[in-house]
C-alpha cells in the first residue's frame, strides 16, 4: 500500500502501478457504497473497465459536486467528523469522515510534515483565533488544517483574538519563552498576511523568530487582488518576523491529508499518496508537462467519500517528475490561479454533456 511508504522516495515506475491499482479499487469501493457516485460513473463513463490501464483513465468528479450533493460511502451512524470548505463561493462543500479515514488523514499529514519539520514536536504559534476549532464535530477548512498541523506542535499558542486583533500578551509570552529555538508557525495564507503581518506593520512592531518555520496554506486569491505574490510574502515575513524558512502548501478540504508542500525551489511536490494530472479546459484531454490547464488531483486516502479523483477549479502547470533539484521524487508543479467562473462551471458541465474521457 502506498500509505506505508515514505512521502518523497518512490519514482514513477514504482508509483504509477500502485496508484492505478489502489485508485481503481477505491473507484469500485465507492461504486458499491455510494449510489449517487455509481450513477454518475454509469452515465459519464459507461465503458469504464476496472482496473484502469493508467491513472488518466480514472473517472473524476468535479469538486463542485461536493457543494451540490453530500456524497458519502458510509452510513449516517459512521460519520465521525464533517469538514466544510471555507465557502467563499456560496454553498460550502461537506466532506464526511468515518474514524478510519480521519485517522489515516492525520497520519499521512504528520508523515509528510515530518519531512519538512523533523520528528520532534515544536512550540507552535497558530496565526488564528481559538474559536476556529471550537466545534469539535464540524470543522471548517481552516479548523481542519489547524487541527491536523497541531499534531506537529506543543505549547500551542493562538496569536489572534476572536475579533482578529493580535493577542499581544499571548504573543509576547510565547516569543519570550521560545523565540531562541526551533518553532513552528502555522496559519492560513490570508490570515498570516492580513491579520498578522499587516497588523505588526501597522503597529510598527516586529518579532524575531530566526529558527522558525512558517507553514501556510489556503489560496492566494485574496492576496493576488492586493498584488501580493509568493516572493513579496516571503520577504515581508522575513522583515517583520525574522522568519526565513517559509513553505506554502496546496491542498483541498475535499482531500485532507495528502497535501502538496512547496520545496526550496518554489515548486509544489506530490507525495507518494497523491498525484496531479493537468487537463485542457476545452476538451478535457490530458495536457503535457509545461502546458497549463485545469488541475485534477488524485489521492489514495478518501475511503468514506468518493473524493479520490477530483477535477478542481484551479489552473496549474506540471514542471517535471522525479527530477526536481531539491531531490524529492514525484511530480512537481505550480498553481497559476483560479479558473474564470464560466470555465469553472464548465468543469461540472462535463457531467451533463458526457465529454469525459
Amino acid at each position, binding site marked *: 500500500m502506498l500509505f506505508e511508504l515514505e512521502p518523497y522516495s518512490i519514482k514513477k515506475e514504482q508509483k504509477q502501478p500502485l496508484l492505478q491499482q489502489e485508485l481503481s479499487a477505491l473507484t469500485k469501493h465507492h461504486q458499491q457504497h455510494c449510489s449517487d457516485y455509481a450513477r454518475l460513473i454509469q452515465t459519464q463513463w459507461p465503458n469504464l473497465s476496472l482496473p484502469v490501464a493508467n491513472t488518466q483513465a480514472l473517472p473524476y468528479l468535479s469538486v463542485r459536486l461536493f457543494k451540490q450533493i453530500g456524497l458519502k460511502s458510509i452510513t449516517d451512524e459512521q460519520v465521525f467528523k464533517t469538514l466544510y470548505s471555507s465557502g467563499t463561493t456560496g454553498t460550502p462543500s461537506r466532506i464526511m469522515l468515518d474514524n478510519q479515514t480521519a485517522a489515516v488523514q492525520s497520519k499521512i499529514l*504528520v508523515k509528510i510534515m515530518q519531512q519538512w519539520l523533523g520528528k520532534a*514536536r515544536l512550540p507552535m504559534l497558530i496565526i488564528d483565533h481559538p474559536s476556529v476549532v471550537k466545534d469539535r464535530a464540524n470543522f471548517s477548512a481552516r479548523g481542519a488544517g489547524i487541527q491536523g498541523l497541531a499534531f506537529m506542535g506543543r505549547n500551542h499558542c493562538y496569536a489572534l483574538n476572536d475579533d482578529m486583533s493580535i493577542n499581544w500578551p499571548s504573543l509576547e509570552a510565547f516569543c519570550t519563552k521560545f523565540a531562541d529555538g526551533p518553532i513552528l508557525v502555522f496559519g492560513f495564507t490570508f490570515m498570516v498576511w492580513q491579520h498578522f503581518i499587516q497588523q505588526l506593520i501597522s503597529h510598527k512592531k516586529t518579532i524575531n523568530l530566526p529558527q522558525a518555520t512558517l507553514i501556510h496554506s489556503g489560496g492566494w486569491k485574496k492576496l493576488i487582488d492586493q498584488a501580493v505574490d509568493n516572493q513579496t510574502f516571503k520577504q515581508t515575513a522575513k522583515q517583520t518576523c525574522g522568519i526565513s524558512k517559509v513553505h506554502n502548501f496546496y491542498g483541498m478540504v475535499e482531500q485532507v491529508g495528502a497535501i502538496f508542500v512547496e520545496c526550496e525551489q518554489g515548486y509544489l511536490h506530490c507525495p507518494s499518496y497523491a498525484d496531479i494530472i493537468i487537463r485542457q479546459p476545452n476538451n478535457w484531454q490530458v495536457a503535457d508537462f509545461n502546458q497549463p490547464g485545469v488541475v485534477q488531483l488524485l489521492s489514495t486516502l478518501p475511503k468514506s467519500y468518493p473524493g479520490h479523483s477530483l477535477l478542481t477549479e484551479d489552473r496549474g502547470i506540471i514542471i517535471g517528475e522525479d527530477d526536481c533539484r531539491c531531490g524529492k521524487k514525484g511530480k512537481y508543479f505550480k498553481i497559476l490561479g483560479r479558473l474564470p467562473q464560466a470555465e469553472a462551471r464548465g468543469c461540472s458541465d462535463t457531467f451533463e454533456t458526457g465529454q469525459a474521457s
Partner: protein
Amino acid sequence: MNHPQLLELFASALAIDIKKVTPDLAYGTIPEWDSTAHMILIAEIEDKFDVMLDTDDIIDMSSVAKADEIINKYLIQQ
C-alpha cells in the same frame, strides 16, 4: 498495563467515566477521543510522566494499551 494510573489520566483528559477506560479503548471509536482530545491527552501524559513525546508517538498512540507501551519505552530509556 504497566502504568495503571493511566486509566485515571485518560478518564480525566477525555472527560469520560473511568469504567469506560479499558486497555483496548481506541482512538476515534468514541466521540470524546477525537484529535482535539488527543492533544490534551498527550500534554497530560507528558506532564504526569515527565516525558517528551515525538510526532511518531502521537500517531502510534491508537489505544490505551499502546499509550502504556509508549510511556514504558521512554521510562526504560531514562
